[in-house]
């Protein structure tokens, strides 16, 4: 990999572009304007250049320049790249594409697959069933499945095509009860995956409200700032979870709603919610549910 593609190369290019564009504007302004007008415009150019530098270094600290295109989850496909306008991006586009090409080589690391569509055991059994000579239909299915394991992008469309290639497989195993059951199970789970919303895989358990380390029911905690603890379990895809907590009065009327960001929960991952909330004076019960916001909210996981 050339120096151009390292994070230092990228941050260097970013700084060079900011300096270059600032210099172009400064030169133009100083040629055309004089006096106070020039002074104000020059201050504006320098200020924007400095702010860009600060933001650029923050991005560098967040290791943004390390990973272009490779590790972003599907949800964030709209992520913009850090480059200045088109006239200056053409050479970098080429190098970035080379990098992207490298990233799609088969040596890619395995991405965790949700348990619902993890068919490792089933495929091993089918392989045994077909002995040493698996038919073409099975190989197609297996290759698609391997593709599912090495990418997070377009997972849904891969699952759909897996499901359609399963049809020809079910014809092959017709007559053998055991293999039929396996294929049917795979089909059901694929269908369930296609149908389900990501939030259906998030489970909240062990919810408790604590004051001074002691757990109490809600009516005993009215008008107090208390600690809420809960366990968030994700059996689906990697998701950015926000827990919504609602306090209800004794008539079941909602008196307060709080959003508690949990952060990203990996497939098969567990996260603990542990934060402080205010219990309204007339709250007697609560409702808790997990949500996945459309656009992930940025926050620091402290």
């Amino acid at each position, binding site marked *: 990999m050339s120096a151009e593609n390292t994070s230092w190369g990228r941050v260097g290019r970013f700084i060079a572009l900011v300096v270059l*564009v600032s210099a*172009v*504007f400064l030169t*133009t*302004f100083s*040629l*055309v*304007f004089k006096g106070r*007008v020039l002074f*104000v*415009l020059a201050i*504006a*150019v320098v200020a*924007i250049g400095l*702010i*860009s530098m600060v*933001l*650029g270094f*923050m*991005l560098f600290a*967040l*290791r*943004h320049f390390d990973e272009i*295109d490779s*590790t*972003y*989850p599907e949800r*964030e*496909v*709209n*992520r*913009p*790249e*850090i*480059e*200045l*306008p*088109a*006239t200056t*991006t*053409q050479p970098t*586009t*080429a190098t*970035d*594409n080379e990098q*992207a090409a490298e990233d799609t080589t088969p040596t890619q690391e395995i991405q965790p697959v949700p348990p619902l569509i993890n068919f490792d055991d089933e495929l091993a059994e089918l392989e045994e069933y077909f002995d040493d000579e698996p038919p073409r239909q099975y190989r197609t299915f297996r290759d698609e499945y391997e593709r599912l394991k090495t990418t997070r992008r377009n997972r849904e469309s891969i699952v759909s095509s897996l499901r359609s290639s399963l049809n020809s497989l079910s014809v092959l195993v017709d007559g053998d009860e055991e293999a039929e059951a396996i294929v049917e199970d795979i089909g059901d789970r694929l269908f369930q995956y296609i149908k389900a919303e990501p939030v259906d895989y998030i489970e909240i358990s062990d919810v408790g409200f604590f004051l001074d380390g002691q757990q109490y029911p809600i009516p005993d905690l009215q008008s107090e700032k208390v600690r809420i603890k809960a366990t968030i379990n994700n059996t689906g895809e*990697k998701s*950015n979870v926000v827990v919504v907590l609602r306090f209800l009065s004794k008539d079941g009327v909602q008196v307060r709603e709080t959003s508690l960001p949990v*952060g*990203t929960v990996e497939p098969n991952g567990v996260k603990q919610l542990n934060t402080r909330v205010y219990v309204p004076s007339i709250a007697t019960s609560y409702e808790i549910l997990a949500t996945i916001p459309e656009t*992930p*909210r*940025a*926050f*620091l*996981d402290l």
Partner: protein
Amino acid sequence: MTAITDMARQYSRVTIVEYSLMVLLGGSSILLAFAPVSISIKQVGVALLFGLTAGLWLSHLIVVLDNALTQADGR
């Protein structure tokens, strides 16, 4: 032409719109500075166009930073 299609594949639609507008507005700002118009028109026009370009650039950087923060949280 291939450079344009490559770019379209690599960047999101929002980014392409932002970059195009930045090139357009920034370029107009510089062109207007050298255009044969009265100095007061120049002052207002150039400042306006430069301000729009800078605003787009900064908002673009903020969105990138916001995404990087979300991503850093996922690691």
